[in-house]
């Protein structure tokens, strides 16, 4: 049903029209490549349902 609705797009004349790849200012601003403190392992794991020895603990990969 939704796909049928968005099929309306096929009616637009897009010949020779570039797709929008970026909105707003062109380019990407950069910041100084400086080393800053980041999230500690403990804080990064604080919300994980299960962790062990500084790693996320997951069920067996089968």
């Amino acid at each position, binding site marked *: 049903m939704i796909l049928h609705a968005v099929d309306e797009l096929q009616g637009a004349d897009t010949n020779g029209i570039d797709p929008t790849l970026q909105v707003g200012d062109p380019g990407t601003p950069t910041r100084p490549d400086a080393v800053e403190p980041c*999230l500690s392992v403990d804080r990064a794991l604080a919300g994980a349902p299960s962790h062990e020895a500084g790693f996320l603990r997951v069920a067996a990969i089968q």
Partner: protein
Amino acid sequence: MSWLLRPLAEQAAALRTGQVTSTALVEEALGRIAQLDGALGAFLRVTVDLARRQAAEADRRLAVEGEGAPDLCGIPVAIKDVLCTEGVETTAASRILAGFVPPYTATAVRRLAEAGAVSLGKCNCDEFAMGSSTENSAYQLTRNPHAPDRVPGGSSGGSAAAVAAGLAPAALGTDTGGSIRQPAALCGVVGFKPTYGRVSRYGLIAFASSLDQVGPFTRTGGDAARIYRTIAGPDPRDATCSPRPVEDPMPTLELGLEGLRLGVPAEYVASGLEPGVQRVFEAACQRLVAAGAQLEPVSLPSTRYALAAYYVIAPAEASSNLARMDGLRFGPGRPGAVTLREQLEGARHLGFGPEVRRRIMLGTYALSRGYYDAYYRRAQQVRTLVAQDFHRAFAGVDAIIAPTSPTVAFRLGERLSDPLAMYQSDVLTVPFSLAGVPAASVPAGLADGLPVGLQVAAPAFADAHCLRVARGVERALGVAEPPDLARRAAP
């Protein structure tokens, strides 16, 4: 009348003369929340202790800095629950993030806090901001303060309802396809979506990254300008946040509408509007002319494809963004799973509601090999056409005005089983989102007792100008009266 229903400038002045303290404002807000929010459901959680601590700190700062304190110092605000708040649970109204306590704070929230604003708590919204009625929240309904059997709009419905009911004088929301403007319109308050890239998205739980933008809900245009200038500006933590300096909206805010050319898109007023909305919009237009504005028809022909393009692009980006919700790093996960696959599938199956699942599937389909060109690429080409429409239109007018929503607030449950009807709620807001331009919704009047919003849009990065026009519209039409419920409540 409650302090919380007065303009921020009045509250700020009273805080400086000692007529009121931040602690008193916050206690008033907490009292009104206790009194009204059980029925309204605007807040998912109220951070009482944190608010009291921040208020006491703001009072100390006001005593020391006096007139030099930022104008939001001591002002209570509410925050949509898609914005991360360090140490305060943030769920995006989704079960998959139940119990998630972020280790950092979103830039927009941090800037409010640095200015001394006091956070009252986190507001309800549609799950991951996907929806137009706040009914997609996994936790609770939010009711429209003007009519409790109706939706507040969405996705930032809790933020809109909180401001409309005078539980907070201002709130932060986010807007991807209309999620600030539509609920502002339906709740009879001011909502402002800044230019894409004007406010940092750092700490905003992403829905559609090329569209999401943080902005304010307030009672007046002036208040929106005050919140906007505090949260806007470059942020090294968001590479899509523009490095351009922010133009302060305050010096030009009261310039009015005299001599301004306002474009009225023929496509937006020709059909599809409820008669009440049409009536209020036409009456508002006459008053704008009386206030010195010149109305001119403009054409935005590609906007007929905008909704379809949006409902390809936004779900495509959402399907990618939500891939990170694996239940392994935060959230309740899937206890008892034996294999990793069970764990991942279980967490997502238990965690995501039906609308989020629908959009993930739609987006994944639109990005899949064989369909990418027909859907995603074509939608992005249509997005270019929509942006070109606006570019052409803005060459001849100073701003564009339109109704914000084709209808007034609809009844709870009315559109829940029909996603396409729900998506239609965004038909007048989505084109501005695709073009990335700033747009505000200002109360325009009532249709059968329910608020109607008037949308004001300006060229990209002309946010100060957009706010000036919005304030001009507000002066011409009058600041909206709060709903009865807000006036009747004890201050």
